[in-house]
C-alpha cells in the first residue's frame, strides 16, 4: 500500500439514512457501498470541493465527512485509520450466526 504522507488523499463517506449502511461518494455523485468506486481527492482544495459535493448530495445520507486513505500501485484504496478500515470492511470477528445454537 502506497503511503499517504501528506494526508491529502481523501474520500467522502457517510451513513445511508434508510439503514445506516456505510457509503462513499463516487465520481458520478452517487453514494456507493463499494469503497473501490469512491471518488478520490488528491489535495486539500479538491478535498474541500469533494466534501461540498457530498454535502450537496446528502438528502439520503447522514453527515458526510472526509476519510483519509492510502492508494496502492493498482489504485486500490484503504482508509488510514482503524476506525475507517472497520467501517469499510465490517466486524473484525465472526458475529454469532442468526441460527447459531453452538459455537463449537
Amino acid at each position, binding site marked *: 500500500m502506497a503511503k499517504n504522507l501528506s494526508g491529502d488523499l481523501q474520500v467522502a463517506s457517510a451513513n445511508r*439514512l434508510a439503514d*445506516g449502511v456505510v457509503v462513499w461518494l463516487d465520481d458520478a455523485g452517487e453514494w456507493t457501498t463499494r469503497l473501490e468506486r469512491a471518488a478520490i481527492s488528491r489535495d486539500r482544495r479538491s478535498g474541500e470541493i469533494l466534501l461540498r459535493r457530498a454535502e450537496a448530495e446528502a438528502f439520503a445520507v447522514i453527515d458526510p465527512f472526509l476519510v483519509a486513505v492510502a492508494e496502492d500501485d493498482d489504485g486500490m484504496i484503504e482508509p488510514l485509520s482503524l476506525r475507517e478500515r472497520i467501517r469499510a470492511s465490517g466486524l*473484525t470477528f465472526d458475529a454469532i450466526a442468526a441460527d447459531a445454537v453452538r459455537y463449537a
Partner: protein
Amino acid sequence: MPDAHFYRYDDYDRTLVGERVEQFRDQVRRRLAGELTEEQFKPLRLHNGLYLQLHAYMLRIAIPYGTLSSRQLRKLADISRKYDRGYGHFTTRQNLQLNWIRLEDAPDALAALAEVDMHALQTSGNCIRNVTADHFAGAAADEIEDPRIWAEIVRQWSTLHPEFTYLPRKFKIAITGSPNDRAAVRVHDIGLRLWRNDEGEVGFEVIVGGGLGRTPMIGKTLRAFLPRNELLAYLEATLRVYNRYGRRDNLYKARIKILVHEVGVERMRADVEAEYAGTRDGLLGLSSETIEAIAHQFAPPDLPSRPAVVGAVEALKLGDRDFALWLKSNVASHRASGYAIVTASLKPAGAPPGDASAVQMEGVADIADTYSQGELRVSHEQNLILPHVAVEDLPAVYAALGRLGFAEANVGKITDIIACPGLDYCALANARSIPVAQRISSHFASLARQHDIGDLKIKISGCINACGHHHVGHIGILGVDRNGVELYQISLGGDVDFGRTALGTIIGPAVTADKVVEAVDAVVATYLDVRNDGERFVDTYRRIGAQPFKERLYETV
C-alpha cells in the same frame, strides 16, 4: 406462560407506549421524506433508543430492572430475526442492543416490543435511564426485599418525567435488596440499598455520586436510612438539586458525581434536605396501598415443594466433573428450599460476551417455561438468569443449556468477561473490545484451570466512557488509541461485588493488542505463585500490592 410474577402494563402504560410508537413512526416518515433534518431528527430517534453506530443503526431496548418473561425473550428473538440479523447483545446495563436495525423498520420493531410491554424509551439522552437491579431479585436467599418493586415505582415516576427530561447529563439508578450488592450500587449516579435497621424497619441507604467513565468515583451516602414511602419525594429533591446545580458548561463535568465531588457530600446533603422539606409532604408520598399494589404484582411464584437433596444430582456431581464445576460456579442459593438460581453463561470460550442468537434466546425461553416459572433475569455481567429452578431439575437444565452453548461453568471466573461492543460497533470507541475478550477467553478456556484460578473478573472497555466497567474489574482493560494504534491499559484491584467497591489502579504503560493475553497471563501467573490458600485474586492484590504483578508483566511483554 403468562407474565405472572412481575409488573404488567396497565392501560395507562399501554397507551403511553403505543402513542410514542405512533409518534415516532410519523417522525421517521417525515425524516425519510426530507421534512426533518438530521439535526432535528437525531434527538427524536435517541429518545426512542435508536443510535447511529459505525455500520448501522443500533436499537437499545430497555429491559426494566433486568426482568424478562419467556414471552418477552421470545419476542426479542423474533424482533432480532425479523428486523435485525438474528442476534442481540445483552449489555452491562441489563439492556439488549440490536446492531443492524434499519431506520424504516424501527417503528415496527418498537410496535412489536409494545406488544409484550416493552419499549426503548430513556435508553438514551440526558434523562433518568432504565433502572437496574440485582439480577437475583425475587429469588436470592439473602434478599431483604425484592428491589424490583422499588425499581418499578421509580420507573413509573421517571418515565417521561417533564422536569427531568433534559438533565445536565444522563442519570443512572441501581437498586439492591440484598446486603451482598450484586447491582453495583456504589458506581451509579444514585444507588439504593435496602436494609433493615435496629427497629426492624426496612428502608433505603441512598448513595449518590458514584460512576465510572472518564472520572470514576465511588458513591457517598447521602441518607443512611430513608423510609421506603419517602423514596420518590427524596429522589425528586435530589434530582432537582442536581438539575439546578449540575454543570451544563462542560460535558465531562456534568454528571452528578462531579457536583458531589465539587461541593462535598455535606453541602449536597444540606441542599437535598432543604429541597426535600418542600417535597416530602407533597404528591410523591407513597401510600401503603400504592406500594402494596405494585408489590402484589411481584408476589413470589407459588413454588411447589421439591426435595433439597436429590440423589441423582449428587450422583451426577460425582460422575461428571464439568457438571460439578457448573454447580459450583453457575448455581446460587435460592430462598426456597429445594430450588436454585441458575446463571446461563453467555460467555462460551471464544465467543463475543453477551451475544445470543435468536435460536439461543428462544431456547432459553423454552427452558424458562419448563423449569423456571417462565421467568428470566439479565445480569449487568451480560448473562441470563433462570431464577426458580428446582434442584432436581438441575441436570436437565444443565443439559438443555449445554445444547445452546450456554452451560459453560465459568460464572465469576476469568472467562466470564464483561466487554463493551468496542470499536467493531461503537461510534465512540477508540479500540476493539470483543476480539480482545475472545482471545483471553480462548486462552483460558480450560475449566479446570479457570476453577483453579478461582474468582477473577476481567472487564474490558473500548474507550474511557467505561461501558465495560473496566475501573471495577479485578483486571481492568481499557483500549486507547495512540496515533492510530490500539493500545490497552491494564489496571488491577478494582471490585464491585458485595459492597467491596474499589477502583482499579493502572499498573503501567499500555500494551499492544497482541500482548494483552500475555499480559493477563503474567498477572495470573504472579497471583498463582503467591496466593494464600483460598485467597481470591483481588485479595492477593490488596495484600501484596501492584509491584510483583507489574514486574512480571513488563518482563513478559
